[in-house]
């Protein structure tokens, strides 16, 4: 459940880079830890993000967790479907549950490969 074609952060976001644009979301591990999500708060298109700063929140029935921008750049698109269907993040965190597309400014810093993320999780999923 840790795809090899994306990069990861210690806060359990994933980053898929295509040219100068990245798609980001939270990992399978993160959604599993949160449990059933009932609310997702996303950044606004056009919003300027700085790597490591909060860009949104995910809430399960019992818990709130911040989602941090994994890269610096400008939000060009967000997954509007999550407003009515936050469960997509649980069902398909690396696919339909994506959160935002960001136009990169500079190069991504400090991201982990799948192997590194796997080791970071201690060999779990």
């Amino acid at each position, binding site marked *: 459940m840790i795809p090899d074609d994306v990069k990861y952060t210690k806060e359990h976001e994933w980053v898929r880079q295509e040219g100068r644009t990245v798609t980001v979301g939270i990992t399978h591990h993160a959604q599993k830890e949160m*449990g*059933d999500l*009932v*609310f997702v*708060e996303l950044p606004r298109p056009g919003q300027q993000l700085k790597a490591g700063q909060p860009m949104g*929140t995910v*809430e*399960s*029935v*019992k818990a*709130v967790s911040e989602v941090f921008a994994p890269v610096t750049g400008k939000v060009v698109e967000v997954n509007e479907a999550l*407003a009515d269907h936050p*469960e997509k993040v*649980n069902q398909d965190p690396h696919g339909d549950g994506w959160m935002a597309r960001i136009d990169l400014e500079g190069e991504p810093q400090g991201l982990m490969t799948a192997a590194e993320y796997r080791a970071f999780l201690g060999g779990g999923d």
Partner: protein
Amino acid sequence: MAAQPPLKTTPLKDRHLRAGARLVAFAGWEMPVQYQGVLAEHRAVRTAAGLFDVSHMGEVEVSGKEAVGWLDSLTPNHVARLEVGQAHYSALLDENAGILDDLLIYRLEADRFLLVINAANTTADLEWLGSHRRGGVEIENVTDATALLALQGPVAAKLLVQVMGPEVESLRPFRFRFLAWGGGEALISRTGYTGEDGFEIYLSPQPAGQLWDALLERGRDLGVSPVGLGARDTLRLEAGLCLHGQDIHAGTTPLEAGLGFIVKLDKGEFMGRHVLARQRQEGVTRRLCGFRLLERGIARHGHEVYVGDSHVGEVTSGTHSPTLGQSIGMAYLPWEATQPGQALAVQVRGSRLAGEVVPLPFYRRPRT
């Protein structure tokens, strides 16, 4: 810092782990917070039935020839009116009518009662009871000798009849009886904390596993599933039921909390009565109300509540209601702002979200 004592476990822990439960520390106990997921478990209780292990609840037996009068002196509901085989909801009050705990009182025999108290308050309650004990009253903590299962939902009665016998069908709300199980006796009461029809079953730890297995096995085709503390909280909040430590506590009285039905001023003197008599005569200045948010977001315990520009209090409990699909919560509001439809706002992190007062409970089960 002193080392934490090891967590207590219920007799069903191994079964929870095998069922894929996530266990968490709760009030000194290691308890299942969820199995397959809070939303699915919540739905199971509303549409079929759910089985809960709530063996962490405290159980205290009170007996003796002075037991009735003594319990009536410490609690606002009328213990002397209880029949053998009947239970009622009540509270332990301090001198100011502050709620030290809420509880169920079962009349087992004329002079013998079972008090069911919150796990988080068990130690403090026992100290309180012990310090007020008088001659002719015996108090025994039977928590460790008592497992407690709750079976809740529209098919609960049908399933329990299959597993324990036809006698349970005729139990009325807040009535109980004893039935044989696993070489001993189990106390079965028609009570619960979910807003659904259902039962709570008290029995010795040893045969509890066999009952748990039988209910899940026979219940499979009915859609019955195990349910953790996560869904227990969303279910009770939808039903408008208070959680001690959040919605009610020593700083709130039963009348402020909307629990006037447990306050029997005419039964004679009892702890906190003078405050309740005054509140009933003069009216309370604030009252626990339900609200819903009209904007996206989730109000949670501790968030600030505003009426106009005035900060009037905090959310005592708040969650996303799985049944209603909206954010619901409770808060103490000034008396003049308690009417349904009253506009309010809740500070959820950076945003002040609009909401309105709604009548409690948020959810009422369909009557058949």
